[in-house]
């Protein structure tokens, strides 16, 4: 897989804050690469140094083998950008914004189809200032795709979107990837990174905490899995303690939490209960997720 973005020893500080401190990574062609981290972690600074919108203090950044600080014009043609914060003139209409921004590029997507995919067709004649927050966000995503970019950058992809629109956006991003584009996104939502990204970079205080596939990050923790069950009127002794996958059992009234490990952990527990003819309701398995990874690696919750 060829490398489209190469970052080595990236360093950037503002007056008294070090925003990005010695960050190195590569993004491969055709992958969805996600950068997660709490507020102020340095995500926007990193992504905008790659886009050529901010100048780094030191380190190396290459996009398509070109330094964005040297030839931004060449790069701008081949990438799409959704900024975390930006705006359009208040009275420009959705359709007008699409054709105006399209006119800045040589390669152009079908703007009608883009608006359709982003659920903005009904709003095509609406002024920018009359759009809701989520609609503005979707318009900016459409604008980022207007030139059929080889690499598209989304800074805070789904901020301001409701859960339904968020899920639709995940589908869209997967489609974009499947069409052969590379996606670089930042997010606050660990769930989003886990569901969407091929690889995730966890950033904290301007430094890389971890970088791998979500599965590898989670399994590297070797954390316990949990099964939560409701067992009405079950005997005091459960036939589970002897199972090799089970570590321990917590019980409060009818509610039982079984802690264990292993790839297939739920199966043997259920089978054992069925064999002992114990009725169970509401089976729920809880997997460790990226939030747990962040907690384990930094000792802090993502949101504090």
């Amino acid at each position, binding site marked *: 897989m060829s490398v489209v973005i190469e970052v080595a020893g990236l360093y950037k500080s503002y007056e008294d804050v070090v925003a990005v401190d010695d960050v190195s990574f590569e993004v491969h062609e055709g992958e969805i690469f996600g950068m997660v981290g709490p507020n102020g972690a340095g995500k926007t600074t990193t992504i905008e140094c790659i*886009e050529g*919108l901010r100048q780094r203090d030191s380190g190396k950044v290459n996009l398509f083998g070109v330094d964005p600080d040297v030839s931004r*014009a060449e790069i*701008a*043609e081949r990438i799409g*950008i959704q*900024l975390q*914060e*930006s*705006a*359009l*003139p208040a*009275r*420009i209409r959705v359709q*007008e914004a699409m*054709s*105006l*921004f399209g*006119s*800045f*590029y*040589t390669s152009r997507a079908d703007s009608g189809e883009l608006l359709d995919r982003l659920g903005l067709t009904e709003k095509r004649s609406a002024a920018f200032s009359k759009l809701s927050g989520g609609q503005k966000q979707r318009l*900016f995503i459409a*604008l980022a795709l207007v030139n059929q970019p080889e690499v598209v950058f989304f800074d805070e992809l789904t901020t301001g979107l409701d859960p339904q629109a968020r899920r639709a956006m995940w589908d869209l991003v997967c489609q974009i990837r499947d069409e052969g584009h590379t996606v670089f996104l930042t997010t606050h939502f660990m769930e989003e990174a886990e569901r969407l990204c091929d690889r995730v970079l966890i950033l904290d205080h301007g430094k890389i905490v971890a970088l791998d596939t979500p599965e590898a990050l989670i399994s590297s923790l070797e954390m316990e899995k949990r099964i939560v069950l409701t067992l009405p009127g079950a005997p005091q002794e459960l036939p589970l303690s002897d199972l090799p996958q089970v570590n321990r059992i917590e019980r409060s009234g009818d509610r039982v939490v079984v802690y264990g490990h292993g790839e297939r952990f739920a199966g043997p527990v259920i089978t054992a209960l069925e064999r002992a003819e114990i009725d169970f309701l509401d089976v729920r398995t809880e997997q460790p997720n990226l939030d747990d990874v962040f907690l384990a690696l930094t000792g802090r919750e993502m949101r504090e």
Partner: protein
Amino acid sequence: MRGLLQLTIMSFKLYLREPIATFFTLAFPPLLVLLFGAMYGNDPDPMYGGYGTMDITMPAYTALILGTIGLLGIPITTSGYRELGVLRRFRATPMRPLTYIAADLLTNLTMTLLGMAILIGVGWALYRVRFEGQVLSVFVAVVFSGLTMFAVGYLIASLASGARTAQVIGMVIFYPMMFLSGASVPLEVMPEGVRRISDFLPLTHVVTLLRGLWFGEGWGEHLTEVFILGAIFVVGAGLAARFFRWE
């Protein structure tokens, strides 16, 4: 300059959708003609070299339009766009910064010419106002004066932190000029002391240059104005280029 035409057309449309800016550029000067025309008429007056009040009002109000756009319109719009992040969004595309400036200048010059056309149309229809210069010469003078005023406007936009500040700076500079430069009230009716202040106001030189060429004088008779305005343009544009920020 890809996108220049589209961007110019779009900014022109956006300008027309902005009721206040459009009012002051297109409707306000003709309204002044209606008001002051009713009060003073257009009879030849020796004080104005044999021209009528409405005759000399045409180049004067043209200067008024240039001042309004350059010292209020451009600073407020530009720093507002920067404050909101509109300029940031443009900068994320391959469009060159120069294309943005060029489209903005073209839009504002076109609006000026449109304002002039309506102004002269009303003046002609009501008072048969006189024009004795060369169209091309006056056109060049309008563009030249426009670039000077617009350069100052960009400088204000570069120095102001946001739209509110830009508006305040623009008004502080523009309002004294509006009354003391001859752009709205002829300097001939002003006391001597006021006229001495007027010499220091850039817009006074715009009024003098336009009025001279309007009534058939040559560029040679207005080298002072050309020099002063040229100097303001060079300094204004230079400083604006130095201090302009996209975010």
